[in-house]
């Protein structure tokens, strides 16, 4: 036994920090392949480029923590962008009014989900899938088929949500960071977070303990969709238009980020810091592969394969560390 202590150590290290090591390995690989990767501007690109996904993934983390899943995050994003752009363009609102309009627009999606899940007892998966279908259709009806609503003369303040900076830090990164901190405090450090986790892990026990699960669930759906709508505001400000049905492209990445994050947690819970790690990993891989100069088909395939492997590794690591958790 004693002779194998050192190999044991390596094994233990791998289990504990395996994902971190992979993160580092990819980081190193990209840096060596193309030195541009390491330049400040590029790393800033990664962070900026991940801001919207980060925000969506936060909303997803919340819903997954309640024990559900949200396939309609993209719809909430679209609604946020649509309401804001229309408020600016057709109603001439100022940036603040438009931002509020966007958030309210997004919350409609959450409210709708909540009605389906709580009122009609549809499972979150099917409920949010319906919301996805319905929300997509509504956008197409509203835009007469899905044409973008462009607003080139967007007020500077609104554009600054995406393009401005606060003491040199890009605003979107600031917004994402603030949301990360808020989410962390609420979900991991507050009593509401404890209740959310309890109901996500064992709903019936949470009910018996006197937790108002329905109320929490409604709030979570609304907060999550408003968060995604905030992502929509940034997306709209970024390109000065609302592109219908664009939110869908964040869905898979958001789910992946949340579950990578959950796998990194010692007890397999969806958690904010894990989600952050997941999002940054995805962002880094996408950027790194873009810089590697591969044919785009190869790049997409590699990205998919890296995603599968990273997830497998993260989960394996969690199992190895804590074999008792389900």
């Amino acid at each position, binding site marked *: 036994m004693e002779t194998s202590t050192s190999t044991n150590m390596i094994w233990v290290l791998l289990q504990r920090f395996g994902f971190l090591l992979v993160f580092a390995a990819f980081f190193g690989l990209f840096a060596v392949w193309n030195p541009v990767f390491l330049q400040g501007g590029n790393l800033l690109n990664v962070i900026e480029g991940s801001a919207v996904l980060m925000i969506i993934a936060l909303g997803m983390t919340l819903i997954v923590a309640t024990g559900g899943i949200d396939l309609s995050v993209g719809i909430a994003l679209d609604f946020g962008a649509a309401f804001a752009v229309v408020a600016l363009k057709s109603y001439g609102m100022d940036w603040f009014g438009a931002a509020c309009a966007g958030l309210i627009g997004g919350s409609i999606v959450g409210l709708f989900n909540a009605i389906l899940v709580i009122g009609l007892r549809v499972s979150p998966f099917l409920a949010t899938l319906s919301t996805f279908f319905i929300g997509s259709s509504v956008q197409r009806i509203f835009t007469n088929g899905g044409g973008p609503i462009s607003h080139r003369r967007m007020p500077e303040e609104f554009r600054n949500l995406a393009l401005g900076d606060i003491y040199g830090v890009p605003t979107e990164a600031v917004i994402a960071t603030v949301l990360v901190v808020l989410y962390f405090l609420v979900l991991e*450090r*507050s009593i509401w977070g404890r*209740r959310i986790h*309890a109901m996500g892990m064992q709903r019936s026990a*949470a009910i018996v303990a*006197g*937790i108002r699960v329905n109320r929490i669930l409604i709030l979570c759906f609304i907060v999550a969709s408003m968060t995604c709508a905030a992502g929509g505001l940034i997306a709209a400000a970024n390109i000065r238009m609302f592109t219908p049905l664009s939110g869908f492209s964040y869905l898979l990445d958001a789910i992946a980020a949340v579950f990578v994050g959950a796998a990194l947690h010692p007890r397999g819970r969806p958690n904010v810091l894990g989600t952050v790690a997941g999002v940054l990993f995805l962002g880094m891989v996408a950027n790194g592969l873009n810089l590697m100069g591969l044919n785009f088909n190869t790049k997409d395939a590699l990205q998919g394969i890296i995603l599968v492997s990273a997830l497998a590794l993260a989960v394996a690591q969690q199992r190895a560390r804590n074999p008792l958790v389900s």
Partner: protein
Amino acid sequence: MSYQRAFSLQGVTKEFPGVRALDKASLDVEVGEVHGLVGENGAGKSTVVKVLAGVYQPDAGLVTIGGETLSPITPDTVHAAGVRFVHQELHLVPHFTVAESVFLGQERSGRLGLNTKAMREETEAFLHDMLGVDMPSSRLIRDLTTAERKLVQIARALIDEAAKVVVFDEPTAPLASDEIETVMSAIRRLTEQDIAILYVSHYLSEITDICDRVTVFRQGKTVGVFDTITDQSGRDLVYAMVGRDIADMFPVKGDRVAGPGLEVVGLSDGRAFANISLHVEKGEILGIAGLIGSGREELIDTIYGLRKAQTGTFQLEGEPLAIKSAAQAVDAGIVLVPRDRRHDGLVLPMTMAENVTLATLDQNTSLGLENRRVARERTEAQITALDIRPPDPDVVTRLLSGGNQQKVVLARWMVTSARVFIFDDPTVGVDVGAKSEIYQLIDDLSAGGACVIVSSSDPVELQGICDRIVIMMRGDIIGELQTEDLSVDELVSAITGARDIKNLTDAD
């Protein structure tokens, strides 16, 4: 009788990280006997069963079945040697038929796929001939009563007629009192066929009732083998199990505060029960008895707001009260220790501290953020008060034994200032020691002026701790009994409807 060894375990040791679950334990069971295995929670009973099942490899020791020493001990070799298990949990596929369930894993094949006809006929024949019940083999498991499911499990274990040893792990735990007899008589029939039976249970009355010999475990060791068992053996068994006399299982009642407590009037849920009225005074312990299906469980759920009430009003200490959800009940000071602690009592993946403070989160916060230090301290206080083992607030509750899990649920409600405590089958699967502790606790609560409702399927328990018992049958309260001078037998006959309550009260 001349016994022949059916199987024996000798010097079996099994260690888990940090625990020696079995410590040179031994166990000998003879052909044709019913052999009891008893011990406290955590004594190693389930572990020994799992060793015998080939689920765990023992670290040391020999397992001999029918004279042959097994090596390796795997589920397959054990099965081949003729050992069968009837597990405590009613693990059956809800949408399978009786025949499919009985033959699961040992199907009869015909030329083209499965021979469903043969399986159906064999199942019905077996249930009739061996277990003495008639049951259509095409019924779905989910439509069966608990006792019928138990019989299906037994049939499953024996259908191939190769069984030499059958292990029953707490077979009666999920059963109502009238159903127990069905299963017990089925077990007795088996001994007539030279099958050895190992019977694991916390119910000592059953043990003395059915077992020929008993082995007692304590902390992983065999501490006693009783070769003759009489109705009077119970006390000796308890002594062997816990290493001390439990003089009185049930606490002695002292003086109580009095005053109006919880009053329920005209409660109906529109399905399981109708127009139920009952009241509990402060300082009183009210028992609710009734068979499974009598509406007892549904009534408890409705009082606690888990089910919707159609009609009915509540009053607590004279004040009217609305209970439409469990949260409202908790806010009003009504708390429930649910019957299914693993599903409804605890958030199993959370730690002890997280579970203990789950209902009182807002008491240990600052600015909405949780103060973990306070939570820990409060949990530690409860660990000391209730003697929860292991005394570690950070242990994940999934890993606690049944009795300790129950104590964690209790601890959660202790930290609230609840006025009404509802216990739903509070001691299922809990060993005698822990049981008497829980009874003491229930009594302390009522002595402290709380209203207590105990709903239970165990007549002994009801008779022992309650002041008054209401009896439910088919969704109705059919009578009410004072426990003073009430015998358990009288209670049982009232619950099963064998005797009219009127006769009982008249006889007093």
